[in-house]
């Protein structure tokens, strides 16, 4: 009987914090929805594949038809295709079907087809290569019944020296970013709520410093810890797994700082939304998991459905992964990655302003 009373008392206590209670179900449901949506469209139809059709003949048209069945094919000029692959990184590769391809093919003369790639998008690139094999096999049945090699693929990277990357180059930065975000969100939110418990809040309230200075100082400390954590994790990947860190160590350090700045500032919003200690875990976890999933920390960004990719362009995790991949895999310099860093800094500044506006100590 006593046991029942204790249990009922605890249930009443738990029921008081409705937000925490709702979060118990909302968080897993949101994560399940995000994962299910991503996995439901693992097909290749969302992969943008620019093709430069210099041939305009029947063989080129037949190849394009096959690619169109599996990929989001756009027939464009060479400059546009190069921009989509090398500058905007919206497409993992472009195909150049050279002039005279049809004539050569129909008269059994071998032709070279150029595949210009962005190897940083390795998963999508693999899918394209599989589809190319399929197209080649189907084309071979036309003019090549005894399977001579009439089409050979000449692969060249448009964005760096290396042609191939492994899943480690996706997973190590992805999980490093996620765990840094996780530790920032919880350390900032718990840190601020703990001050209420310790009574530091009242002392700070009467101290001759502005809330901006107090919160800014706290975040600056987290910035140092988070940047160090991220760099150590990436360094661990480099030493143990041979992960490339790019050719500019300064660029990597600045990228890490900007990523952690945006995340630390974003943690302020989570701290503001979670008004009790009990709410921090569900709110924090849902924020971290959704940002990590949509931002391409768990799987390659372009494996997600198009609408999720569009949505993800507004998240700092997406731009964090883009910036890391730019430096690590595309050998980009600090100047070249500057627009993405500017986005991260702006994101952090806006998050900090919003967090400052929303955050209230529950005691004051």
């Amino acid at each position: 009987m006593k046991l029942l009373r204790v249990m009922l008392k605890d249930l009443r206590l738990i029921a008081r914090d409705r937000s925490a209670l709702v979060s118990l179900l909302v968080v897993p449901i949101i994560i399940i929805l995000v994962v299910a949506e991503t996995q439901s469209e693992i097909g290749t139809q969302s992969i943008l594949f620019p093709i430069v059709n210099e041939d305009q003949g029947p063989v080129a048209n037949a190849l394009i038809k096959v690619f169109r069945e599996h990929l989001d094919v756009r027939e464009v000029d060479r400059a546009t295709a190069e921009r989509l692959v090398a500058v905007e990184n919206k497409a993992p590769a472009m195909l150049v079907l050279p002039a005279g391809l049809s004539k050569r093919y129909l008269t059994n003369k071998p032709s070279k087809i150029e595949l210009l790639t962005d190897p940083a998008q390795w998963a999508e690139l693999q899918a394209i290569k599989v589809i190319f094999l399929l197209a080649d096999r189907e084309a071979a049945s036309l003019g090549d019944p005894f399977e001579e090699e009439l089409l050979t693929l000449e692969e060249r990277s448009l964005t760096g020296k290396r042609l191939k990357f492994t899943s480690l180059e996706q997973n190590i930065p992805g999980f490093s970013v996620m765990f840094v975000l996780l530790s920032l969100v919880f350390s900032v939110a718990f840190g601020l709520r703990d001050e209420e418990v310790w009574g530091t809040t009242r002392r700070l309230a009467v101290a001759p410093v502005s809330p901006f200075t107090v919160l800014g100082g706290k975040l600056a400390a987290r910035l140092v810890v988070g940047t160090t954590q991220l760099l150590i994790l990436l360094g661990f990947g480099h030493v143990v797994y041979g992960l490339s860190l790019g050719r500019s160590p300064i660029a990597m350090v600045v990228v890490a700082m900007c990523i952690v700045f945006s995340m630390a500032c974003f943690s302020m919003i989570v701290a503001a939304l979670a008004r009790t200690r009990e709410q921090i875990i569900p709110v924090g976890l849902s924020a971290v998991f959704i940002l990590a999933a949509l931002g391409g920390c768990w799987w390659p960004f372009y494996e997600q459905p198009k609408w999720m990719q569009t949505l993800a362009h507004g998240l700092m995790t997406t731009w964090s992964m883009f910036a890391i991949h730019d430096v690590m895999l595309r050998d980009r310099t600090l100047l070249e990655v500057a627009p993405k860093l500017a986005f991260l800094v702006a994101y952090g500044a806006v998050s900090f302003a919003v967090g400052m506006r929303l955050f209230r100590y529950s005691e004051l």
Partner: protein
Amino acid sequence: MRSWLRVSWVLLGLLAPLGNVMGAPSPMERTRAVLEEARRIVDSPKTHNEKLADLSALLKTFLDTDTMGREALGEHWEKFSPAQRQEFLQLFRELFQRTYVQKLLLFEKPDFGYVGEEVQGTQARVETKIITPRDEFAVTYRMRRDGDDWKATDIQIEDLSLTTNFRRQLSRLLAKESPAELLARMRRKYGPGGTGAEDEL
């Protein structure tokens, strides 16, 4: 009177085949009829496999694949037993028709041009072209007279003779493989239920 009758019979005997010749289509007319029908099939809203079947049926009476097959084997013909030759010709018919038809189907809306014909006794050459918006593909048919009809014994696309190309490929294979192995290879692709039947673009 008897001599007149004899002369009449002789004249009738001479003119009868001439009548056939006069009524028979020229190599160019025959080719044009086949290609225009082929264009109608390619333009039709049928499925790829239905088009493939219709084109194969159309070309069966136009292509002399037996002559092509013998030419493609060249000196290797002697290595084949009579039964193997028969099977080879059957499989080669399927292979050649499929290769040619698939090439035709590459052109989504083929526009044919008829350049000219050259007839020498029972042999003829018909020059045509396939016109695409950007390019032209010269296609020449080498033909032989077959009774009232003309049959294609080789097709040349640009500078590539399909028969010569098959001869080169078959020679290369027969340098490494026996006739039985070659037939097994062809059977896998072009025999009943072969993988060649599933190819689709």
